[in-house]
């Protein structure tokens, strides 16, 4: 008897309709409709029972207009100096860069253990579950947790941001590693090549475009996080001055200026990433 000649078990095949009445409504579709209906009911209920706290809509919009006008049409430096704000902005960029690079290096080595085509299944599953748990808790919370351990300041921000970056990048990296064909890995294994040589000579060159692109996305996320974290951990970066201007001095002119500065950096990052993509990554 030849192995292939045995018929395959057909448990995966959906059963054909037997009765005369043929329905196109399958169980997944029923579930989908049920979920959508449930969400619609919740939305209608919460809109109907909304507590407006005696808000005067026209007054509210008027003061919103005044505030937006102060923020975005009349931005000024406020009580801080230009050099202070620019220095703080640079601190935020540096914070994002440091945590991304640290996170990327640590994440690569952990990702090797989390890739199913390289590591034993139990190890990959364990690492992936731990990383999913870390990722599920927002970056800000990790920074606050580390602030409690290490005290407020830049070091708590660095450790907290790196921690969450590692968890994020391990997922991205390990999935990229899993996409390298196991055949090419097998080819080198068959010629007696050791584990780390395979990682650095075969796996890494195949996935460098994906790694760079994920790392850059994480850099953008880390910049946004660095701003938020600066306020929370008092890391003396632009987020801290944004927080002080908005919540402490109520200087909306300065808030506007800081928002423009952040926007500028975000645009620069976007342009750099597009440039990188078109010149270095899309040559496959």
């Amino acid at each position, binding site marked *: 008897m030849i192995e292939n000649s045995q018929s395959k078990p057909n448990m995966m095949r959906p059963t054909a309709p037997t009765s005369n009445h043929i329905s196109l409504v399958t169980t997944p579709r029923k579930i989908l409709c049920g979920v959508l209906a449930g969400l619609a009911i919740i939305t209608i209920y919460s809109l109907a029972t909304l507590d407006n706290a005696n808000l005067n809509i026209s007054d509210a919009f008027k003061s919103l207009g005044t505030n937006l006008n102060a923020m975005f049409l009349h931005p000024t430096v406020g009580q801080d100096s230009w050099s202070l704000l620019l220095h703080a902005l640079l601190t935020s960029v540096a914070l994002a860069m440091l945590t991304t690079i640290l996170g990327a290096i640590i994440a690569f080595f952990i990702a090797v253990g989390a890739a199913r085509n390289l590591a034993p299944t139990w190890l990959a599953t364990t690492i992936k579950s731990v990383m999913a748990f870390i990722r599920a808790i927002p970056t800000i919370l990790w920074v606050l947790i580390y602030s409690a351990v290490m005290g407020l300041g830049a070091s708590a921000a660095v450790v907290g941001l790196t921690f969450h970056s590692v968890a994020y990048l391990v997922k991205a990296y390990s999935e990229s590693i899993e996409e390298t064909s196991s055949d090419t890995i097998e080819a080198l294994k*068959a010629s007696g090549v050791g584990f780390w040589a395979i990682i650095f000579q075969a796996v890494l*060159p195949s996935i460098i475009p994906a790694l760079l692109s994920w790392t850059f996305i994480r850099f953008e996320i880390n910049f946004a996080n660095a701003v938020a974290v600066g306020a929370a951990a008092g890391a003396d970066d632009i987020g801290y001055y944004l927080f002080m201007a908005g919540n402490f001095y109520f200087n909306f002119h300065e808030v506007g200026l800081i928002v423009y500065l952040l926007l500028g950096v975000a645009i620069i990052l976007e342009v750099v990433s597009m440039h990188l993509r078109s010149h270095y990554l899309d040559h496959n």
Partner: protein
Amino acid sequence: MLKVIQLDKTYGSNKHSLQSVNFTAQPGEVTAIIGPSGAGKTTILRSINQLIRDDSGQILLDDTDIRQANPAELRKIRHHIGMIFQNYNLISPLTALENVLHGRLGAKSTLAGMFGLYSNEEKQEALELLDEVGLKDYAYQRCDQLSGGQQQRVGIARALMQHPKMILCDEPIASLDPKSTKIVMDILRRLAKEKQLIIMINLHQVDIAMDYTDHIIGINSGMIVFEGATSTVDDQVLQQIYRQADPQAVTANEN
């Protein structure tokens, strides 16, 4: 000389994929393994360098039993067994030259292997091997820009870079057009003679096996049903090798 004695391999409960497989392959000869799909051709080939672990038997390469080797010894033995594949299995973003140099990675220390540190002599040798398979001008070409036949020749050069005693070829021409097939088979036959290599090839195409090989092993349902010089193979032998072949299984695996 490669000597395989009483090799057995079962998958699952009692399905034999290899049953008492015995054969020998001589240096300087091209040996083909032919047989219907699912007969165990790939299992035999991959057992030889222990990519597939078998249940019992002996695999003697120059009187060393590969099955008894510990992991470190196995790496050393594998370094002297080249392997080429149906899908070439090159690292496609790297250049042809870099891929050929990968043949030396198995002989390197962990650090030198990690950072890909090659001596000038090794680079020189890699270039000469590329020249030998007619691809010297493509040394700096990325492998994904080469044709299938060219990639397979890079694969052969990579195997030669290992200074092999033996080259295992797993369906090396299944994805190639007739012209590339001829080039690749000519190179393999020439190498066997010139370098006194043991070359073992899994083949689907009987006509290619008849034209290019010296020795044929016919296998059916995990058992060897014929072993002998290619010149002694006739229609009756072929019928014996391919008997009972389930036509559906053959077509399903042919692509």
